[in-house]
């Protein structure tokens, strides 16, 4: 894995918006116990940086933001998942109630 980004690379930065003690009052304890965080993508403006380094990026909207380097061109890895067998059986049974060929 490449862990050094160079100027112009598409990277993701991490920003701690609020530490736990700075968070708003009216939220559940489990939420209040953790920081309020943000991740934003942009093109690296620094010459080079490693994961965790403070960096600046230019976002897709064209403005500059600063944060810690979190990832270098992270994948979109949400998927189609596994076919849900129970659901497929249920809806095929529903279809078969209509009759038709087969």
């Amino acid at each position: 894995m490449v862990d050094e980004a160079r100027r112009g690379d598409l990277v993701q930065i991490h920003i701690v918006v609020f530490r736990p003690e700075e968070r708003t009052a009216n939220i559940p304890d489990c939420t209040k116990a953790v920081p309020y965080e943000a991740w934003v993508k942009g093109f690296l403006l620094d010459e080079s940086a490693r994961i965790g380094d403070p960096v600046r990026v230019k976002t897709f909207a064209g403005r500059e933001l600063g944060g810690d380097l979190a990832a270098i061109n992270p994948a979109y890895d949400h998927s189609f998942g596994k076919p849900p067998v129970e659901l497929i059986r249920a809806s095929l049974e529903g279809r078969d109630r209509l009759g038709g060929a087969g």
Partner: protein
Amino acid sequence: MTRDTSYAAVMARKNEILKACVGLDYALFERSPIRFDYEGLLSSPGYSLAEVQRIQAETGVGRTPLVELRNTTDLVRSISRAGKGARIFVKDERCNPSGSFKDRRASLSVYHAAKLGYKGVACGSSGNYAAAVASQAAKRNLRTIILQEVFDSRKVGQPEILEKTRTCEAYGAEVWQLSVGPELFYVMLRVAEETGFFNASLWIPTGILGIETLGYEVAVEMKEREGRFPDAVVITNAGGGNVTGTTRGLAKAGSTKTAIIGASVDLRGLHMASDLDFNRKSFTTGHSGFSVPFMTLPDRTDVPRNAARQLRYLDRAVFVTQGEVFYATDLLAKLEGLDRGPAGNTSLAAALAIAREMDRDEILVVQETEYTGAGKLPSSQLTFARENGIEVRRGDPRENVPGKAIVIPEGPEQIRVEDLDLAKIRRSYVEKAVGAAAGYRPTEEDVRFLAEDSKSTVEFVRSALPR
């Protein structure tokens, strides 16, 4: 000069920031600590229905197909009593540019932002609305910043929202992927202050006026094709925009007797601001965690007054379970050849039960579909649910427990809707509205406003006022 960016300081500047970033002074419409001029607020941007249609046509929004679900109707009739089983139609809103009815809302707000001279738009949305704003802004050559609640504290993202990040970035937006919490509003205010962009909030007047074309199209096309208006329209309901805009649009076409039914996924028991509950939901909108609070406290939004006021328009509100919506989704694909996302299928699940109560010659319209794909499909969501310890099985949907068990029905006859007690909700709305104006004694005009705003009567409101 560097401004104080602490939470308290930014919140203290809230009203001035909002006034600048929505280009609207809400104070002009306030009439008392309870009452405001709702129609005045909605007409303030100055767009007639015909103008909205013209603006939407410019960016390819609207005029979506109204499709009769013949096989679904047959299936419903096969399990209904003699003479029962209404014809079911669906408005295929997937055919909009970014794949949902939200393009209608975004198209008008983004047009309005461009007209007012803003260089960009920002909005807080984890759903289709974000994609719609980014898409419409691309068409109008405005820059976009989207704020999304995506990750829990393990940095595990809800797949449907990860998909929304992807599509917003595809449209060229700067996307803030945020962790769980209501502080998204704070980030919104800071973005607005730093960029001077327009806040394309879901709750501003243009965000509602844009939906009126949907209801109007349903009414006009049904009248042309069937010689009558729909008897009932089922609308997936969260914040109330879809209910509000659709009902107003139906009425503008003369369809004033159509029963308006709001449907939401039952996620009772899961806290919306809980880091632990966040990824125990298979639905990220159209659920009880939004619909119920918005009914009783509509103005709890990111603008001073919410232009979406669902209680004003709802005749009936129902819950369906997560398992029932997954089942309706897969039936729609296998019976009708329409592979569509969860938003419209929430109302479709409700329609499968409601059509059974209606006569065969009646017409029931499900007024939206949305696009689907990675992250949004039942395959994605049920895989994710299992990874998060949720039990998925077939059985009686009554055994469904939000955050614990998703039960896929054995057959369509098991689908039912749970009716919400709207009288109780209306009472709670009145109590909260009066409670928020502590020390103020409601006038006759306030009482009339509360009656209109809750689709009740002056007598009902009086009976609900604190003694």
